[in-house]
């Protein structure tokens, strides 16, 4: 059983309160965040207690993420999901402690810390959900534009746009950009799954997707398509 921390290390602001009340507690929340950081920086038993409390907090966040995604992971045993949440909390703890100097107080410390646990848990859960699935880098089926009730002319225009997109992908993107765009945008492969298979990071992969999309938009604009509403 953990000893209670010397300082108050509980989330200070409850958003269940009306916003005006929550705002009035903002100052308390900032003071509480300072207490967290001070406790985590101070050597000795106080830091140990703060680290233990932080791990509890991160584990709660990781379990929260598991509970949100449980429906998509119904084939995975509960014990494995518990273990996955614990791993996520462990890695998030290392990340939070390693980046403590980056915390600038732009949000409450607890909110800042939560995001590390949610990221670690989310990545693991998405990858676990795709563990037995093949990642396809070629289009499985080229989408046809659905009949959206816009009449024959509107339908023809929609199909013309999709045809132009396909041509632009073939002519204007690099092979890597093409594979990434098709896998993510057409075949529904999660970013974190593809980044693992291609041995890269989410950020680097999204940059590839971003550049491919920019090229596509530019090419379609030169072909006379108005994309302002998309």
């Amino acid at each position: 059983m953990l000893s209670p921390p010397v300082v108050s290390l509980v989330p200070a602001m409850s958003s269940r309160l009306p916003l005006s009340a929550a705002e009035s507690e903002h100052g308390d929340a900032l003071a509480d965040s300072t207490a967290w950081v001070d406790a985590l920086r101070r050597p000795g038993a106080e830091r140990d207690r703060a680290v233990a409390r932080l791990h509890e907090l991160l584990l709660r966040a990781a379990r929260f993420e598991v509970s949100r995604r449980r429906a998509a992971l119904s084939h995975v045993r509960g014990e494995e999901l518990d273990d996955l949440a614990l791993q996520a909390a462990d890695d998030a703890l290392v990340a939070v402690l390693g980046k403590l100097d980056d915390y600038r107080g732009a949000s409450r410390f607890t909110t800042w810390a939560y995001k590390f646990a949610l990221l670690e848990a989310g990545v693991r859960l998405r990858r676990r959900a795709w563990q037995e699935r093949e990642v396809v880098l070629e289009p499985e089926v080229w989408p046809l534009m659905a009949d959206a009730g816009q009449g024959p002319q509107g339908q023809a225009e929609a199909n013309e746009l999709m045809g132009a997109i396909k041509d632009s992908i073939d002519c204007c993107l690099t092979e890597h950009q093409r594979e990434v765009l098709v896998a993510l945008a057409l075949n529904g492969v999660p970013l974190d799954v593809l980044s693992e298979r291609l041995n890269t990071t989410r950020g680097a992969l999204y940059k590839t997707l971003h550049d491919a999309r920019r090229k596509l938009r530019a090419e379609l604009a030169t072909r006379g398509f108005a994309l302002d509403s998309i």
Partner: protein
Amino acid sequence: MDRHTNDDTLKRLLGPAEPEVLCDECFERLDEYVELELRGEPADKRIPGLRAHLEGCPACHEDYESLRALVENS
């Protein structure tokens, strides 16, 4: 299959029209963005490009939804 399906397909292929931050900056400022939203402050004005990124990046969007829900329920 309807207009929403068409729009979703096009949005996945073409991404957001507006300038966007990328994943690293999104992660860096996500906590601030969520708290601004929950306090009713103009998050999109204070952190331009983050909303566009959330529309274009499903992974960061899921992280955003989870963080917002967790903070709301804390």
